[in-house]
């Protein structure tokens, strides 16, 4: 039997490995599986380090911002400098804690003002390990009651939805991801249309007919039609309007700062939620409820 020439062995190995991965891709598409076991192992192994890294990085950042950066201003007297350094270090720690307390207080206020909606606060400990998707990893998971398809928000607005859960962690698909979407409507004109991500900082609202009037800067809020997010939560503001065929191309600036998330709230319910609104709601959904990420033509109220 004729063997493979040695110098071609690596080429054969390359072909074999590529074919194997292509087959793995095909199996995932065909069976709609996501290789959950491998992901659970990997995330389980990495998340403790991410948690530790996130905490220590936060400490270093606070120390750097509030201590080392100010060190040059305290050279007049060695004694005073030492004393100052100690005080500054304490201040930096207190400032870090105060900033964290402010953020947590905002979350708590929001939580208390919407006591009827079950939710839990979680800390962001990781982001997607590449640019192909936009996800964040939370430090809470199945043991805290988090399940797949639960909504994730901040007091500023909608963040995304839970797409994967692990015992002590959960993965959230951000609104800016290409495969993400939320049932939304324009706050003034009450025109309903899903808002989705496109892998960029701005979101897109695709299904608003050219005949409808949309104003620059108009607020976009959740419509509640996706059965994940309650109605009237801020999604963003209209940042760009272009005529399209047959729908307008409307780009939305997200209300929540999705580039810098540190703490979020997870809506602990898989049933449609209602949230108390300060303004009376005019919209009355008449169209059947749309699942998230399923584009539907706009419904004008």
């Amino acid at each position, binding site marked *: 039997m004729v063997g493979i*020439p*040695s*110098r071609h*062995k*690596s*080429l054969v*190995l*390359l072909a074999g*490995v*590529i074919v194997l*991965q*292509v087959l*793995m*891709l*095909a199996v*995932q*598409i065909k069976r709609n599986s*996501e*290789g959950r076991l*491998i*992901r659970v*192992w*990997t*995330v389980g192994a*990495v998340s403790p*380090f*991410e948690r530790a*890294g*996130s905490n220590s*990085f*936060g400490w270093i*950042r606070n120390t750097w911002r509030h201590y080392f950066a100010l060190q040059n201003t305290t050279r007049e007297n060695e004694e005073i400098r030492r004393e100052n350094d100690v005080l500054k270090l304490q201040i930096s720690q207190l400032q870090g804690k105060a900033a964290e307390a402010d953020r947590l207080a905002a979350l708590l206020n929001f939580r208390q003002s919407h006591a009827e909606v079950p939710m839990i606060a979680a800390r*962001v*400990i*990781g*982001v*997607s*390990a*590449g*640019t*192909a*998707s936009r*996800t*964040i*990893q939370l430090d809470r998971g199945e043991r805290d009651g988090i399940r797949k398809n639960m909504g994730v928000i901040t007091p500023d607005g909608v963040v995304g939805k839970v*797409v*994967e859960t692990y015992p002590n962690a959960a*993965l959230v*698909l951000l609104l800016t*991801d*290409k*495969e993400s979407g939320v049932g939304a409507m324009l706050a003034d004109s009450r025109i309903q249309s899903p808002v989705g991500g496109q892998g960029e900082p701005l979101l897109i609202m695709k299904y608003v007919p050219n005949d409808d009037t949309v104003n620059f800067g108009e607020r976009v809020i959740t419509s509640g039609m996706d059965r994940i997010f309650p109605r009237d939560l801020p999604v963003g503001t209209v940042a760009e309007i272009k005529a399209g065929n047959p729908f307008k191309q409307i780009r939305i600036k997200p209300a929540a700062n999705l*580039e*810098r*998330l*540190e703490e979020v709230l997870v809506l602990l319910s898989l049933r449609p939620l209602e949230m108390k609104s300060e303004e009376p709601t005019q919209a009355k959904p008449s169209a059947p409820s749309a699942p998230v990420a399923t584009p539907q033509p706009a419904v004008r109220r």
Partner: protein
Amino acid sequence: MNDAFDIRGESHIEVHKFRTGAIIIATLLALLIQSSFPIHFAKAAVLDLPLLVTIYFGLSRRNPSTGLLLGMFIGLLQDSLSGPTVPLGLYGIAKTIIGYLASSIGARLDTEHPAARFALTFAFFITHQGLIVITRRILLVQPEPWFNMHLIVAALVNALVAVFLFLLLDRLRKN
């Protein structure tokens, strides 16, 4: 460069050996930083540290078989950490090919000069993104743009970071 021709007839120019565990630790560290650094610096998401590590060890080890296997390992781990919207194999395929190409080129060219490292990383980054676009468009039937200015900027940033990162990783070599 110490060229060696092994008994099996395959040209292995394995000039650089690394300290025990260095490759695994560097790989895991790159993945960990990649998945946690952008929380604090959003712009850091433009970096692809796992790719830079794949390129570095490919160029240094200069063995196509180990280069492609390391690329596959790193790529699949990156897939697992990227959430369910990224199927296992997307980064895996791209990094397998980059690992193979890097180690094949490393065996033929001088890749120690910073200018060569800059140029090679730039080219590999573009190739890597091209492979991802091909996989998305052909195998996954997902719309994906072929080219944009962001890609060029990202390639330049990664190439620049690679020059300094590779100098750092050179310290892991056995003397």
